[in-house]
């Protein structure tokens, strides 16, 4: 019953919220990236490659944010049995995986001129790569549940268990000596000059809007698929 009560309200909201999030996000992120590429200063040591940070850092935050979304939605699904939570968890997987991949690739491109290597197996890089594989596992598992009709609680449990990787990624540069630098931005203070920080924060907010818009679009897609299937099944029964 409440599968049909809630999606109605969600859909009336998502119809205008989806394009709004995407447009705001594309404008903000696009503007911040253009500023970062053309006007932001070069770094004292890194030089021009500091500009890669405007993509790399928001992508890293959203890659981790995507799994956090999956984990929180999975908890809501398991405890409160809210059907929209299941859909939200599924919808966050693809954008999370894409941002994690963007983070890894741009980080590798940054590492070559900065560190002198494309890749090292240090704590931060390895745990981020594990996150990408967790996303692949989750997407495959959710797809299998859809096709085979197994319990949707299996991906939810996987989503919660996999969340243990998120604090490990976050703390990896503090716990272990790593080639990756320690966090520059911690609660209340930043070791990043304001000339870099502002475009970075605007890019991060913009990419977050894009992330939100993509999650909403994918929720609408999953919901429409479920409703189509339910409708066709009822028709087949009636015929």
């Amino acid at each position, binding site marked *: 019953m409440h599968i049909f009560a809630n999606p109605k309200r969600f859909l009336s909201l998502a119809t205008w919220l989806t394009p709004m999030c995407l447009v705001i996000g594309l404008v903000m992120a696009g503007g911040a990236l253009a500023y970062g590429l053309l006007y932001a200063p070069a770094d004292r040591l*890194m030089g021009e490659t500091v500009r890669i940070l405007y993509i790399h850092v928001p992508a890293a935050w959203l890659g981790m944010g995507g799994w956090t979304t999956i984990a929180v939605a999975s908890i809501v699904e398991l405890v409160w049995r809210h059907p929209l939570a299941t859909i939200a968890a599924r919808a966050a997987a693809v954008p999370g995986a894409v941002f994690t991949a963007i983070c890894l690739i741009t980080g590798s491109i940054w590492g070559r001129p*900065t560190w002198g290597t494309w890749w090292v197996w240090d704590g931060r890089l390895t745990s981020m790569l594990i996150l990408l594989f967790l996303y692949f596992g989750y997407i495959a598992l959710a797809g299998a549940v859809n096709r085979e009709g197994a319990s949707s609680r299996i991906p939810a449990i996987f989503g919660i268990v996999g969340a243990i990787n998120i604090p490990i990624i976050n*703390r990896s540069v503090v716990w272990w*000596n790593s080639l990756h630098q320690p*966090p520059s931005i911690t609660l209340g203070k930043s070791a990043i000059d304001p000339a870099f920080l502002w475009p970075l924060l605007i890019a991060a907010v913009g990419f977050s809007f894009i992330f939100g818009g993509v999650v909403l679009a994918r929720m609408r897609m999953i919901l429409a698929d479920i409703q189509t299937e339910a409708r066709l099944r009822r028709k087949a029964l009636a015929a």
Partner: protein
Amino acid sequence: MSAIKPKHQRLVLLVIALIALIGAGLLAAWALRNQASYFYVPSEIVAHPPEADRAVRLGGMVQAGSIKTDPDGVTIHFMVGDGKANVPVVYAGIVPSLFVEGSGVVAEGRMGKDGTFVADNLLAKHDENYVPRELKDMSGAQAKAVVSETSQ
């Protein structure tokens, strides 16, 4: 009815599972504490020198004024320190463009018999500070102070 609501029962179960999971994760991270480190710092190398010819990584700060280039123009000598100990390093090859005095470095190689670290490969380690080029004439410490003042 004295039974707990199923919703609450599920919540309690989940909380217990989460605590177990976080505990397991912390334990694993603690166990990996030494294995997962990407490099040793000079004071660790000095306190427990690795056996010669075992491949290790040494990471620390390139000490100011310590980079010396041999007449062949390729071999360089420098000191890597962590504030407690210094290890001399010798390296022959192309250095990354961010390899400068007062900045971080990770050297891959092995400990020589004379106490000099022979590096096969150098990686530049960047720190967490991002400073525009206009400030580059200041010393690192001054620039850090400027950043921390202006970003409060």
